[in-house]
């Protein structure tokens, strides 16, 4: 600040205080530093303006001052007896006399609303009041209190426009969809930015380490991420140390998970009745009645512990943490463990140079349940077969050609170990108060080892109660797979930040480069002994060994720039442009240009608004932006030769051969999304009410889809990936927060958000509809992605009812009098002959909705009474459909049925119109399997109690809070299956086939600061 101000060279008071500040010492002023915190919650206040008064100082035309960084810290060189004025939107102005202090801790009283927050906007921060795009910030502490693995899962219901679809399977990350689904085949994952490192997966990040999550939702906000921004950007900022006393924090919880919402299956008697009717041959129930889900599910133990130490001096700060998470899951043999360690350090070398690192290591150890087969088999396996008796398994295979699910799980040992190092280091040079250079290098190393061992067993009486069937594995199998990924990013940025009278301008220019490499290797042998200590390749039969390996590499190079302009705290302008080069496109289409512009009007700062007392803050925003999506396979445009198409001339060992089997589109280009968004932010009633309303219209074009081409063209799979489709999402988001205060003892808050979204394919541009969602052998596809309908719409036969008698069947004719279902029997479904051609086939299918919800909402309540706090979070979605894939998969007359089907099945006596007569499955896809996907759920309820400080301090604990938390307390759903929350690919989403059972978690925990 004072670099070029010779008038201040005389001040020398602080010279001896800090040798490091050698440069500053030339100015002879006193260096001070400090932290500014929110008086109510003690959180650092980011972006607060600190100005010096007391002497009429001018520095290059500016008032001397600075702005606090992301940790709420600031450094200044001040004259003696200086007085600081600290202002920040949303806080009352504070005036502080420096006096003899060199390290200040200043508390700001909140004035009004949440608009005061500083938000991370990508390659920089902005005051919320200056933001013209749509972003939402969620505090880490809001997320950390939930007993779940990832922050994304905890984000569910917390932010409008952000849909989180979670499976609940240990060790997995949920699907995140920001403002609808706007791609069909390219990746839909939002981009995560962890301390500047770009990644697609944050399951390695300990939620307790997170300060804030900022979600950039609209194209104008994400355009700074250009080609990575189409699906939204989630920026994660982890905690850093604050100069001052060392703080030790422990937070942990211990609990258990239990299955919720199980579908009740028929017992032996119900099964025998139904199947006897369906098959026409008598089945005796016998004495055994197996509840297969009971046999493969259990209550799982879960724990999460985190310990952090932070602190520092004015030269360096540190934040160190270690976390340990265990999630046993509710399927037998399933357990996920994660150890995570973090070190975030910042070093201030002098007034000009700062540097820091953020480093995290995580070890994820996942003992995976063989769910795909076992869970489906548990649905189908007959209850009249024993699961396991005296160490021998019931032979469902010989009875009904379905594997014994307990054996499926117990004879498979599937383990995946991830070691991941994700971190970044920065060097920041600020030669002038208004000029900052920053270089940030990030790296993401992943080493993933998976091991699958399948025990040897035969279909004889050693393994089974009775012999036979096809469930057997004559030779044990060991397969190992190693994947190593290294992804580096390097950003170099220059930021200018100056104010000229009523004009304030922040400008950013920079470059980024990144490179991704993946190396995969796998090996396989049979006849590996069953002792786990021998599960290495060399113990297997070398004559059976096979190996394989593959790799991937791509690079991106980008130029970014952004201007934030603020005139008189009333009119705002943001403009960005990013040029992205990606190796994943052919040279002529390699570069994409992604501009955006946003304007804002702070009405509340206008003179005409000064008289009113309702609104503290009122801001109108409008923005437009264009972003891209380059998440396509790296080989999408290159014609490659498929190797190892061998042929053994004369028998014996084959000669390797190859073939060119794929036609590629040499003109492949970016998927481009354009979005227009208008929003209104408001804070009212002295900060008690705040909220925002956004409307958006998002059109994604040039979407990559597989276009079917005639087989004669010679493409082996008959499809070519090309840019053909367009998808539109239009929506409305509403967020309202109320903070109330009944008395000093009792405060409460109510927050709600709702999102309405309409998803529609608006053009296939020569592409064919995408048929997807095949289930089992009989339902080759159940969804169709086509013009005018949401992505992945269910496309099935319409059930009109059930034929009650032969008369119904013979009178069911088309316009020409042709009998439409002549082969039907009473009790069969009557399907709609949509095209009137007198027969039921694929041409009669109709669209019946999709998994894309019409609306989703979250509701968050909190009450604090003295030392008690209580909070409840709700989440739900409405207006979507799910497909009961388990029921649809039923393909053998001996497969089990749901208990409800045993009683509601059609009989001539009950005349049901909705449930067919007892049948052997193999039904065509129809509306029978399509059910409402609407649900509402109490995601989390937490009751906490802070022990009196007087008490805890006796045992050297600064503060101690104990809490009881319950995750997924209650779900209200119409769906008759297990869960209506089904992550999946856009074109086949919402089919419940092998979904992990919904779970409830109950946990107790404590949070202590030392």
């Amino acid at each position, binding site marked *: 600040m004072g670099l070029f101000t010779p008038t201040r060279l005389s001040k020398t008071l602080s010279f001896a205080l800090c040798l490091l500040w050698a440069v500053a010492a030339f100015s002879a002023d006193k260096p001070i530093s400090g932290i500014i915190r929110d008086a109510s919650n003690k959180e650092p206040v980011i972006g607060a303006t600190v100005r010096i008064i007391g002497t009429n100082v001018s520095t290059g035309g500016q008032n001397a001052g600075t702005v606090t960084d992301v940790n709420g810290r600031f450094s200044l060189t001040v004259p003696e007896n200086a007085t600081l004025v600290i202002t920040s939107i949303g806080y009352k102005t504070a005036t502080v006399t420096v006096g003899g202090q060199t390290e200040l801790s200043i508390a700001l009283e909140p004035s009004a609303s949440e608009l005061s927050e500083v938000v991370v906007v990508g390659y920089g921060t902005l005051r919320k009041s200056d933001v013209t795009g749509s972003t939402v910030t969620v505090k880490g502490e809001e997320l950390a209190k939930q007993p779940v693995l990832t922050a994304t899962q905890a984000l569910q219901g917390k932010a409008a426009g952000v849909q989180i679809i979670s499976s609940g399977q240990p060790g997995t990350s949920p699907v995140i969809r920001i403002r609808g689904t706007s791609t069909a085949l390219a990746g839909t994952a939002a981009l995560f930015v962890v301390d500047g490192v770009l990644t697609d997966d944050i399951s390695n990040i300990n939620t307790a380490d997170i300060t804030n999550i900022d979600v950039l939702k609209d194209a104008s906000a994400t355009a700074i991420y250009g080609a990575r921004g189409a699906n939204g950007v989630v920026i994660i900022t982890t905690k850093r140390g604050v100069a001052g006393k060392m703080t030790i924090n422990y937070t942990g919880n211990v609990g258990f998970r239990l299955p919720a919402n199980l579908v009740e299956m028929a017992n032996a008697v119900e099964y025998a009745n139904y199947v006897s009717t369906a098959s026409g041959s008598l089945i005796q129930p016998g004495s055994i009645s197996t509840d297969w889900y009971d046999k493969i599910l259990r209550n799982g133990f879960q724990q999460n512990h985190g310990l952090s130490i932070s602190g520092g001096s004015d030269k360096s700060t540190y934040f160190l943490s270690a976390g340990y998470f265990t999630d046993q899951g509710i399927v037998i043999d399933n357990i996920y463990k994660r150890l995570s360690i973090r070190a975030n350090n910042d070093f201030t070398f002098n007034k*000009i140079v700062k540097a820091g690192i953020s480093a995290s290591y995580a070890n994820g150890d996942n003992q995976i349940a063989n769910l795909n087969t076992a869970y489906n088999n548990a649905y189908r396996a007959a209850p009249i077969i024993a699961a396991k008796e005296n160490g021998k398994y019931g032979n469902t295979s010989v009875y009904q050609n379905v594997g014994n699910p307990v054996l499926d799980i117990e004879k498979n040992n599937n383990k995946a170990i991830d070691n991941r190092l994700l971190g970044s280091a920065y060097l920041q040079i600020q030669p002038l108060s208004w000029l900052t250079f920053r270089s940030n290098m990030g790296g993401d190393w992943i080493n993933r080892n998976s091991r699958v061992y399948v025990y040897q067993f035969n279909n004889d009486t050693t393994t089974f109660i009775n012999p036979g069937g096809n469930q057997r594995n004559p030779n044990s199998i060991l397969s190992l797979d190693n994947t190593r990924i290294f992804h580096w990013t390097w950003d170099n940025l220059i930021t200018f930040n100056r104010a000229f009278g009523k004009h304030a301008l922040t400008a950013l220019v920079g470059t980024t480069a990144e490179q991704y490499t993946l190396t995969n290797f796998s090996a396989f042998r049979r006849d590996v002994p069953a002792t786990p200590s021998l599960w290495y390749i060399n113990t297997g039969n070398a004559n059976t060994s096979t190996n394989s390996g593959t*790799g*991937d590499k791509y690079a991106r190079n980008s130029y970014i720039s952004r201007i934030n302009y603020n005139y008189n705290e009333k009119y705002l302008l943001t403009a960005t442009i990013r040029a992205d080069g990606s190796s994943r496109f052919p040279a002529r289409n390699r570069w994409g240009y992604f501009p955006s512009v946003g304007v804002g009007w702070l009405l509340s700062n206008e003179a005409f608004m000064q008289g009113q007392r309702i609104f503290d803050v009122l801001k109108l925003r409008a923005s437009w932006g264009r972003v891209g999506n380059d998440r396509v396979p790296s080989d999408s445009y290159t014609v490659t*030769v498929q190797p190892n198409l061998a042929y053994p*001339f004369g*028998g014996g060992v084959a000669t*390797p051969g190859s073939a060119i*089997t794929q036609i590629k589109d040499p003109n492949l280009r970016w998927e481009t999304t354009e979005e227009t968004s208008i929003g209104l932010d408001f804070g009212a009633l002295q900060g008690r009410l705040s909220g925002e309303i956004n409307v958006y219209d998002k059109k994604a074009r040039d979407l990559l889809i597989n276009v079917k081409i005639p087989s*004669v063209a010679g493409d082996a799979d008959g499809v070519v990936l090309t840019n053909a489709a367009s998808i539109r999402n239009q929506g409305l988001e509403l967020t309202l927060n109320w903070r109330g205060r009944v008395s000093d003892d009792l405060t409460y808050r109510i927050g709600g958000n709702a999102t309405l979204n309409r998803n529609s394919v608006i053009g296939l541009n020569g592409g064919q509809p995408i048929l997807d969602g095949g289930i089992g052998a009989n339902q080759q596809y159940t969804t169709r992605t086509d013009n005018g309908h949401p992505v992945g719409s269910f496309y099935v036969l319409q059930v009109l009812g059930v034929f009650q008698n032969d008369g119904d069947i013979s009178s069911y004719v088309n316009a020409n009098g042709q009998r439409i279902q002549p082969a039907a029997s009473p009790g069969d479904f009557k399907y709609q002959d949509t095209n009137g051609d007198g027969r039921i086939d694929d041409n009669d299918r109709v669209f019946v909705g999709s998994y894309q919800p019409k609306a989703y909402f979250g509701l968050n309540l909190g009450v604090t009474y003295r030392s008690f706090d209580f909070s409840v979070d709700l989440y739900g979605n409405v207006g979507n459909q799910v497909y009961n894939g388990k029921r649809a998969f039923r393909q053998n007359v001996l497969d089990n049925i749901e208990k409800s089907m045993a009683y509601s099945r059609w009989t001539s006596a009950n005349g049901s119109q909705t449930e067919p007569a007892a049948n052997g499955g193999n039904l065509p896809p129809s509306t029978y399997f399509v059910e409402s996907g609407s649900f509402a759920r109490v995601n989390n309820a937490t009751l906490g109690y802070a022990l009196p400080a007087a008490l805890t301090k006796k045992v050297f604990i600064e503060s101690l809070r104990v809490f009881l938390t319950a995750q997924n307390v209650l779900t209200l759903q119409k769906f008759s299956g297990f869960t209506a929350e089904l992550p999946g690919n856009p074109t086949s989403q919402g089919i419940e086939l092998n979904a992990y059972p919904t779970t409830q978690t109950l946990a107790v925990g404590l949070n202590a600061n030392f």
Partner: protein
Amino acid sequence: MKPVVNYILSGIAFSALLLAASCQKNFLDVPVQAQATAATDPNLAVNLVTGVYNSLYNSEAFGGAGGDIHGISFISATNIISDDADKGSTPGDQPSIGDIDNFNTTPTNNFVAALWDGYYSGISRANQALAALATASLPTATKNQLIGEVRFIRAYYYFNLVRFFGKVPKVVRVPTSAQDANDDPAFQTRAPVDTIYNVITQDLQFAIDNLPLRSRAAVGHANKGSAQALLAKTYLHRKNWQQVQALTQAVIQSGQYALVPDYSIIWRSAGNNNIESIFETQSGTFNNSDIAVGGYCTWQGPRVGPRGGWTDLGFGFCTPTQNLVDAYEPGDKRRASTIIVIDRSGRGVGTVLYDGFRIPSGDSVQNNYYNYKAYASENPAIEPFLGNRDRKQKNVRLLRYADVLLMAAEAANELGQTAAAITLLNQIRTRAGLPPTRSAGQAGVREAIWNERRFELALEHDRFFDLVRTGRAAQVMRAAGKNFVAGKHELLPVPSLQIQLSGGKLDQNPGY
């Protein structure tokens, strides 16, 4: 002054960083990893030729890449469709195969679609190989031999295509892009049957001219005899008897082939590439696993029935019909090595196969009969087997010397040389343990030869084509109780998806 120095230094440092990050030359020219391109494979042409042979294995019947050339779709459209085999398996399994069996096939049938995909996928591989060979730097003789082998396979594919579908698109080049394929009418419209037969004839004539005799060719490769035999069979379908006679006589007189004494070993590994073999798919091992036509044995393997209690060998499709079982003459040795008969005597003795494997008696087995020719032993001491049930090492015999003899007999008979025809026919009967034919006269001998073909080549993918070729399909199929419509069911429907994708330019076969 120090701050100024700092300022300058930092400015320089950052300029350098910016440049380093952005200006690294070719930073974005990242080659595709782990996959060769035509430019990076030095041995491309030869490898592509092997890849053409590999397409003989294509067997994806459910929409998988590469389609079906010799898998269950082929089995369905050649054997199951005929009066020699039923769909088999359980009644509910694969109803679309039942549709083929009963002539209820619709243009959406997935097995028919898989055949169209498979054969054009194979033809595409051949065209790719021919394109690469055209520019490969190989000795001319080697190059022509490789071209001959590829053209032999392409001709074989077109021969099956034209017999399945009649008119089909004539595709003899590699499209440069999807757009090229969309723009060239050759890819979009069906060429007349005569045009396709011309392609076949020219390909095979090139192969005959450039391939060595069997004894000088490597085992498993197409050779001069294979091309002559296939061209003879092509002419057989065109009723060009002079050419059939000339070509079959060339094969017979080449001295390269003979009938093996024991009919039963023809379809076993012991009979692989034996003296009777003219062209057969090869099997062996690759990457420590079995490699062969996918699922050939498993689709047709005996299937467990209601009582269970044993590990079955497959899905039980393509079961020999009672009609076939009953049609053999007494004493015909071929019946026992063509048909596995399940024990339904009630004595519980089961059926013991040649390798000692015992199939339990009928109440544990789904069907009455199974295809013995598709049986592969799981005992590695008897037949090579590394445990991959989906690719049991079975050579699928596509052309045998016995077929050549019968074609020669038929040509001789049609050309009025009835005595010569009988001599040829009796070679086949003698091996089968049967007395010389009692048929006489051109018409009688014609019937006898046709009849002999049925038993000699039973379940060898010939019967239905033979019935259509000889104009007997309608009569024989209706007699077998099938709803065969003459003028329609001789051909399969063109897959409706392909018609859609051509923008309606592909036309449909009559009646569909």
